[in-house]
């Protein structure tokens, strides 16, 4: 069988600077004891609260492979015993949004529609309140700054999972486009368009963050071989 010769990999023009983000939890003013109050608070709470309970909670629960999506879905099930609403809220994939307004809008829409169809659920008291929190974020450098693909894979294996979350999940809010820092760099600096899009397709809701890291490393490793 003749082998197809692939063009040599391009050396990246720019270094990939691995960063990480840490956060401090602030207790917010909003609190919901019914789904009606949840809807009101979802409309009025600061963006940082929506971010905390959707994007950020994924980092706090990065080790769960399935069954946890966001805090609103979790509360709808555990405190309100509304499995339909919980499933609908859990189906919201934060990676389909490039801003918080979009995530908020989708959550509000789901709760609104649910309450229209299930008016008796509107004011039923939850087993426990939902307390809105918010994250104060601090982005930190790391010692990892690869400028070759093998070094990139090596660094990827060593950085913290917080760094993976920062570059892979939170990134689209910074980039304002449906991508992530890894795919962006691989496509723009190394010309690996297919690799970049394979990474972008990784499902974060059926993987732990460690699993995501390993998948990224494997996909980039395939491009190297």
């Amino acid at each position: 069988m003749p082998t197809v010769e692939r063009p040599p990999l391009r050396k990246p023009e720019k270094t990939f600077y691995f960063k990480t983000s840490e956060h401090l939890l602030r207790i917010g003013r909003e609190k919901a004891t019914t789904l009606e109050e949840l809807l009101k608070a979802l409309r009025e709470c600061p963006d940082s609260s929506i971010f905390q309970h959707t994007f950020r909670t994924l980092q706090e629960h990065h080790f769960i492979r399935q069954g946890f999506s966001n805090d609103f879905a979790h509360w709808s099930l555990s405190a309100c015993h509304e499995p339909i609403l919980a499933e609908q809220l859990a189906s919201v994939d934060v990676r389909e949004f490039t801003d918080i307004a979009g995530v908020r809008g989708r959550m509000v829409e789901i709760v609104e529609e649910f309450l229209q169809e299930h008016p008796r659920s509107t004011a039923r008291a939850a087993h426990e309140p939902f307390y809105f929190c918010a994250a104060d974020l601090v982005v930190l450098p790391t010692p990892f700054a690869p400028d070759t693909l093998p070094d990139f894979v090596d660094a990827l294996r060593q950085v913290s999972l917080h760094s993976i979350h920062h570059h892979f999940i939170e990134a689209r809010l910074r980039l304002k486009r449906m991508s992530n820092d890894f795919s962006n760099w691989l496509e723009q600096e190394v010309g690996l368009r297919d690799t970049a899009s394979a990474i972008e397709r990784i499902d974060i809701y059926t993987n732990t963050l460690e699993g995501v890291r390993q998948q990224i490393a494997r996909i980039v490793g395939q491009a190297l071989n």
Partner: protein
Amino acid sequence: MKSERNRAPSPDQPQASKTLTVVEPPASRPAAAPVRPGRELPSSVLTPPVPPPPPHLDDYESIIGAAQVEALRFLAADVKGKTVKMVNSTAVGGGVAEMLNRLVPLLSELEVPTHWEVITGGNDFFEVTKAFHNALHGTEYELTKNAQEIFLMYNEQNLQRMQFEEEVVVIHDPQPAALIRAKERSKAKWVWRCHIDLSNPNPSVWEFLRPCIEKYDAAIFSSQSFARQLPIPQYLFYPCIDPLSEKNKELDDSVIQKVCDEFGIDRSRPIVTQVSRFDRLKDPVGVIAAYKLAKKYVDCQLVLAGGGAKDDPEGSVVLQEVKEAAGNDPDIIILDLPPWCALEINAIQRASTLVVQKSLREGFGLTVTEAMWKGKPTIAGAVGGIPNQIIHKLTGVLVHSVEGCAFQIRYLLTHPEFARRIGMNGREQVKENFLMTTNVKRWLLLFRILSGSKPSPIPT
């Protein structure tokens, strides 16, 4: 007195269930004879061990990874040299002192010089603050003018005695809260770290303290539900455990075996354990009832390991109730341990197949954290801070009744793969959110924010 702990039970004769406790002179025992007499504890636990030196930051690398330790160093570099004073009301005993014993050296190692001072007061002061503590937890209490004066007078005495030259002053709990009056003469940022549940405080005590609290620059609570509406920023710092402490460090199997042998725990059969002081709010009698229901279907032993019965009159009454509920079941092992038995508790938790914490009320529930850290499938009451730790069926199991607890014991003992998975998730939950190193990170982030570094609310 000879220990009976190593006596082999006769296979055809029921052996009285095991109760190990510090033996007291007969005269001090309750008049009503317990169902079973107390037995001697192994001599190895009768005196407190010498505490080991506190660990260094590098010692945590094998637990949280080099990258996380590096992140702590980066964070600390931004606040390097910033001076901090921590103030609380006791140097030994209690969770706050235990936490400060580890936190202060770690912050200092990160070049954030941190000083810890303890306020002083007479018996009258501590009687008032104890009453305040209970009242803030919701107990009925009549706040008198005299109690207010005692509280303020001792705070004023401490205020005159202490210097506040540091850049950040952290006041722990209500006892020293009125030291905030020194804020006018200091340049520091003042933080109130409240370790207690303020979700349903006695209104008179809370309204008395509120003007003090509102003068702080920030407040910290252990759970969202413990916070109050205040005009200052409120942060959430979960309580934490130290993975390198005697209570939580890794143990050789030989140590675990030795402790089990000493206490008569059979490791060849399933072990269900609850670790808690003998207190009705921990529902030890409910745990026995759940165990008895479960035992109709599955073989297991029940270990109730705790303390507090010796120095707490109510504790000894509860211990008596527990013994009566246990009856003559040889598979119920009741251990009334002195407070320094951290290593023994560690070994018992590690030997356990399941850990139960069937509390009816709870603060944060650090015994749940400890069990989860050891990878144990944990069944716990859905109260206090426990739901912050246990996500039902993902990082443990939440229950609301004796029957629910019994069912989960049966289920987890007969579904070991599910039990293993929630145990592993529980450990990861603690690693991510409830370890001492995470707490150090929170303090560093807070110091950074207090020093004017503006954090970002969302990625930009």
